[in-house]
């Protein structure tokens, strides 16, 4: 169902603010804890690196999409 543009922009603004906090925490997690492990795989076990890279990217894509959908739902429900 189509929602008014102003309403959409307000929801997106709230979602972006919550997202910024989550993203900073995520950057810290990925770059701090996975960085050296993935770099090691890249240099020493290329095939495992490829498998890990694809799985992490697909996992992140699906996970983030679900998280953002849930976030969007919560923001809209909170506003009603």
């Amino acid at each position, binding site marked *: 169902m*189509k929602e008014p*543009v102003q309403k*959409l922009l307000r929801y*997106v603004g709230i*979602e*972006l603010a919550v*997202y910024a906090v989550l*993203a900073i925490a*995520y*950057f810290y997690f*990925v*770059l701090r804890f*996975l*960085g*050296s492990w*993935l*770099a090691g795989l*890249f240099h020493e076990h*290329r*095939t495992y*690196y*490829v498998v*890990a*890279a*694809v799985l*992490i*990217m*697909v996992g*992140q*894509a*699906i996970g*983030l*999409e679900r998280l*953002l*959908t849930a976030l*969007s739902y919560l923001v809209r429900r909170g506003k009603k």
Partner: protein
Amino acid sequence: MFFPISGVHIDPLVLGILGLVIGILGGFFGVGGSFLSGPSLFSLGMPYNFVVGTDLIHIVGKSIVAARQHRMLGNIDLKLAAVMVIGTLVGSETGVDAIEGLKRFGEVNLVVGLTAIVMFTGTSVFGAWESWQSWRALKKSGPADADGNEKKDVLAFDRIAKLFQSLPLPPRIELRQSGVARISIWSIVLVSYIGGFFSGFLGGGAGYIRMPAMVYLLGIPTHIAVGTDLFEIIISAGYGAIRHAMNGNVDILVALVMHTGAAVGAQLGARLTQYFSGPWIRLAFAPLPLLGAIMVAVALFTHHH
């Protein structure tokens, strides 16, 4: 921040914002945004081999998010996508082979650069002109159809699409989701082969060619073309990403950071398609390849390439 795989220092916030902008473009227009992300990563100091591979795996992640959004909106024709994958993969291999052939003559940058400028400019000019004509036709026929649907699609070159659809080469299939009664599989394979060729030859997902070709040649409604193209990009870019990753051209850490921004942008872009009719989406898309052409021209004629 230091990224140990590609050995570059890039601010993760800049990557996140870049991803957000590219995500919005992808969700709204159904393109990977490689004409923007590639030159941007290059200018941030990443070696070009990593730019191509990293961009491809990031496109896969972004397209998964955007395609799921379009699936919920009913914008993906799975039958069409399944046929297109065949042509895209074969075309992509041909494009990669053409690059390898040009490498042997030592003219790869010049030939690929000039081809990109011609293709991007041509796509922009034709797209702007066609969508402007379509928009005028839409205005004449009124703002909404009988059902009050403001998203109705009008094509200035409807006759070309009808001609393409009527090619008598068997097997011919019905694309119910796209509203196409009968179309030869070979028409679809040809269009996807051309898209795949330019994906392998110019890099990225080549949605800037495939998406308009689906609309103008196959007669697929713009909203379905956007969604189906994104779905198809998951397969074709995924294949390219795995090939590049095996050759050590993918920095997954950079891709993951960029993708966090792109995930949000893709959702926003997909939702925005609700507010615009097909001609408006195509008109807004028109200047983007031209932007890519300008960037390539600047890099080709001012740098050391």
